[in-house]
C-alpha cells in the first residue's frame, strides 16, 4: 500500500511501485485530467505538479511521488476556476483541448517561478506539444496573466 498526497488529500493505493503516477491518477484515483499522449515524457499532456515542479507523470514511478505533494488539474484551484483556467477561457486557447490540462499545469509552474515571463522564458520552459497549434494563444494568455500588455481578446459577447 502506498500513501499519496493528491490535491491536499491523503489517498491510499495498492499498486506496483513502478506504475507511472499518470496511471495511478487516471485508473486508480479517478482523476482523468492528466492525459496520456506518448508515455515517454516527450509531449507533456500528462503534466502534474510534484512538490511544485511540473513533471511528466507518464514517466514517473509512483514510488517517487510518495511523501510529496501532488497537484493535478482537478486540484489547481481551491474552488471554482484558477485564474490560469479563466485566462484560457478568456483567450479561447484550447482547440481539441487534449493537451491543455498539461499545458495549464506547465504554465502554472512557470508563473509561480517567473511571474512575468518573456517569450523566450515561455519557449524554454513550456515544452508541451500541441497538435492543434494553440501555442500563440498560450503565450497571449500567459502574458495577460503576467499583467503585461497584450491585445485584448476580440470583442467577446459573452463570458464563459
Amino acid at each position, binding site marked *: 500500500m502506498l500513501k499519496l498526497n493528491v490535491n491536499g488529500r491523503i489517498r491510499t493505493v495498492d499498486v506496483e511501485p513502478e506504475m507511472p503516477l499518470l496511471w495511478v491518477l487516471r485508473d486508480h484515483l479517478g482523476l482523468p485530467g492528466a492525459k496520456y499522449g506518448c508515455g515517454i515524457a516527450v509531449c507533456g499532456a500528462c503534466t502534474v505538479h510534484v512538490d511544485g515542479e511540473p513533471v511528466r507523470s507518464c514517466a514517473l514511478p509512483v514510488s517517487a511521488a510518495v511523501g510529496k505533494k501532488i497537484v493535478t488539474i482537478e486540484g489547481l484551484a481551491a474552488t471554482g476556476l484558477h485564474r490560469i*483556467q479563466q485566462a484560457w477561457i478568456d483567450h479561447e486557447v484550447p482547440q481539441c483541448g487534449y493537451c491543455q490540462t498539461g499545458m495549464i499545469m506547465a504554465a502554472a509552474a512557470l508563473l509561480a517561478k517567473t511571474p512575468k515571463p518573456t517569450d523566450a522564458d*515561455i519557449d524554454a520552459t513550456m515544452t508541451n506539444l500541441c497538435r*492543434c497549434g494553440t501555442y500563440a494563444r*498560450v*503565450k497571449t494568455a500567459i502574458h495577460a496573466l503576467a499583467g503585461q500588455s497584450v491585445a485584448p*481578446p*476580440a470583442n467577446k459577447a459573452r463570458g464563459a
Partner: protein
Amino acid sequence: MTIALSRREFLKVSTALSGGLALEFSFPVASAAAAGAAATEVNAWIVIHPDDRVVIRIARSEMGQGTYTALAQLVAEELDCDWAKVSAEFASPNEHVRRNRIWGSMSTGGSQGVRSSQDYVRKAGASAREMLVAAAAEKWKVPAAECTAASGIVTHRPTGRRLRYGELAAAAAKLAPPQDVRLRDPADWKIAGKPLHRLDIPDKVRGKPVFAVDVTLPGMLHASIAQCPVFGGKVASVDARAALALRGVKKVVREEGFVAVVADSWWRANEALKKLKIEWDTAGNGQADNRSIAAMLRAGLAEAKLPQARKLGDVQAGLAAAAKVVEAEYQSPYLNHATMEPQTCTAWLKPEGFLEVWTSTQNGEASLAAAAEAAGLPLEKVEVHKMMLGGGFGRRGGPQDFVRQGVAIAKAMPGVPVKMMWSREEDMQHGFYRPASIVRMKAGLDNEGRVTALHTTIACPSILAVLMPNSVQRDGIDFSAVRTFSDLPYTVPNQQVDYAMRNGHVPVGFWRAPGQQNAYYRECFVDELAAAAGKDPVEFRLAILNAGDKNRLVLEAAAKAAGWGTALPAGVHRGVAVADGFGSYAAMVAEVSVSAAGEVRVHRIVLAIDSGHVVNPDTCRAQAESNVAFGLGSILYQEINVKDGRVVESNFHDFRLPAMAEMPKVETVLVPTGGFWGGHGEPAILPLTPAVCNAIYAATGKRVRSLPLKHHDLRRA
C-alpha cells in the same frame, strides 16, 4: 416527443450509481434534454426548458475546430433566443437511425461541418421560432403577424404582452412545423457571425472527462492491443502464459488481426501486452519499403497511357510551340495524423443484447454501423456516445477500425464494459496515412512569359480506393489525388493531368485537406515558372487569374496585408502561394529566414481567406493558426518511413511536432464576400507549404522539391 430509448436507459444506469462513482460517469447524462423531464423538444434540434434554457443538438463532431459552437450559433440566431442560456449536446446516433436520419449528415470532414449543414440547421431554428410565435398568438387569440420573437421572448406588439420561450415550448411543440421559413440576411446576424466563446472550452480547461479516454463505467476493465506490424498481416500464434500471470490481467483476446490484453488498469494491460509472444503472418508484405514504394510510383509515372483527370486544348502542341519549357519533379512522404488522443473505444455488451459504445469519432453514424456489424446486432440495438475528440484531422471518420476492435473485445467479455486504448506506438504504426506521391510537371512559356501549356503526371495511392471504393470514378480517377491540378484556376490554354493510381500495402486516408500536397507541388512550380519568366511571383499569378476569380481577391488581400514588396529585416525573405479548396479561397505570404548553418525559421504567416460567410471569426482565426502548426510539422520534420513492411517511426521522438518556440506569428485576414459557404478547418493548410518553400527559395536560391526539410542541406555554399 420521444426521448431516445437508449438515453432513458442510460439515465437509469447512472441513477443506480449515484453514490461516488457517478462523478466520473456523469458526462453523457449531463445532456440537459435527459436531465429534466419537463423539457420540451420543439423540433429535433431544439429542446427548451421551462426556465428558458435552450439545448441545441449537434450532429457533427467536435475535434477543436469549433463546429459544435458555430452550429449552435446558427440555430440560436434563427431561433432568436438568449445566447447566455444556450448549451449544446450531441445528437444520438441510435436515435438518428430510428428517426429516419433526422439530423442529416453526422460525417465531420472535408471542412463540411458548417457549410453543408448551415441551411437545414438555420431552418430548424427559424421553424421553431415561428412555432413559438404561433403558440403565443394562439394563447392570446391574436394574429401571429402581430407578434414578434426576440431574445427568447414573444411580444404581442399592440398590447405589449410577453411570453417567454420556456412558457411556450410545450404548446409550440404540438403545432405543425411551418412549410416554408425565411432565413435572416447574414448582414442582420446578432449571434452568428460574432466571436462568441466556444461552448466546449470551460469543461476542457477544468480537466473534465470529456474525451473517449476519460470514460469510466462501473466494473470497467481496460485493454491495450497489438496489431500485426506489417499491414495486412494476421496473428499466426500467441503464447500468453507470461502475460496472464501478471497482476490485474483478466484475459487475452485473440482476433484475426490483433491481440488484446484486458486488465484492471491500462498500464497493467499494456505491460502484459509486452510479455506476449506473438508470431505474425505478414501476408507477403514483409519486404515492402521506401525503395519499393518509390519504384511503384515511378513505374506509374512511366506508364505510356494513363487516365486523364483533365484535358484542355492540346498540351503537346502547346509545349512544342513554347518559347521556354520548364520541368520539375516533386514528392512527399506518407504522414500520420498523430492525434494527441490515441484511438480509443469503450464497448459494453449488455446482457439484454444492447451494445453501448463510447468513442471519439468524426462520424457517429459510421461508428454505429461499424459497431453493429462487429457485434452482429441490428442498428437499433446499438448506441454510440460521441465524446469530444482529442484531435481528428481525418483519422477518425472513414476508418472505424478502433470501433470494430473495441466491440470485438467487448464480445469476448460479455456484460463487462472494456475501454480499449491504443498505445502511442500502435497509433503511429497503424494509421491511415497521407499518401506518399511523386508528381512531374512540364510547362511551356511564351515570349511574354505567359504559361501556354501545363502537363502534370501524378503518381499517388488512392484514398477513395481504401475507404470509399464506390467513389472512385469509372476511369480510375480519385478526385482527392488530382485536385488543385484538375481544377486549376490559372488561365492556361493547354492542360493535361494524368493520374497513375498506385496503391501498395500501406493504408491511406484523409489527412487534413486531402490532396493538399498537390497545392505544394503546383504553387512551388508556378513560382519556378515566375522565376523563369523573370516576373514577380504575385504579379505572375495575378496575370493568369481571371478577373473576378476569388483566388485573385485573396492573393491581393494577402499581399497587401503582408506588405509584399516592402523592405524586410536583413535575412528575412517572403514567399507566396494561393489555392482554393474545401469551399474557400486561401492565399498566404510566409516570411522566412535561413541561417548560415541552414536552419529554417518561419517568422510570420499572413493568410487571407474568403469563405463566403463567417459564423465565428475567432474560431476561423484559430483554425488558421491550427493549419499553420499542423502543416509546419510536415514541412520541417515529419515523414512515415516503411521498412520490412512496417512503419519505422513509433512515437513523438521520431515523428516530431513543432513546439512553442517554432510557432510563427499568424495574421489572418478574413475577407468573406458572401453568396457561398466555405470551410475553415482545412483550406489554410493548402498555401502554407508552398509559401514557406518559395520563401526558402527567395532566401537561398534553392528549390525544395521534396519534404521534410530535415533532409535538405540549406547551408550557404
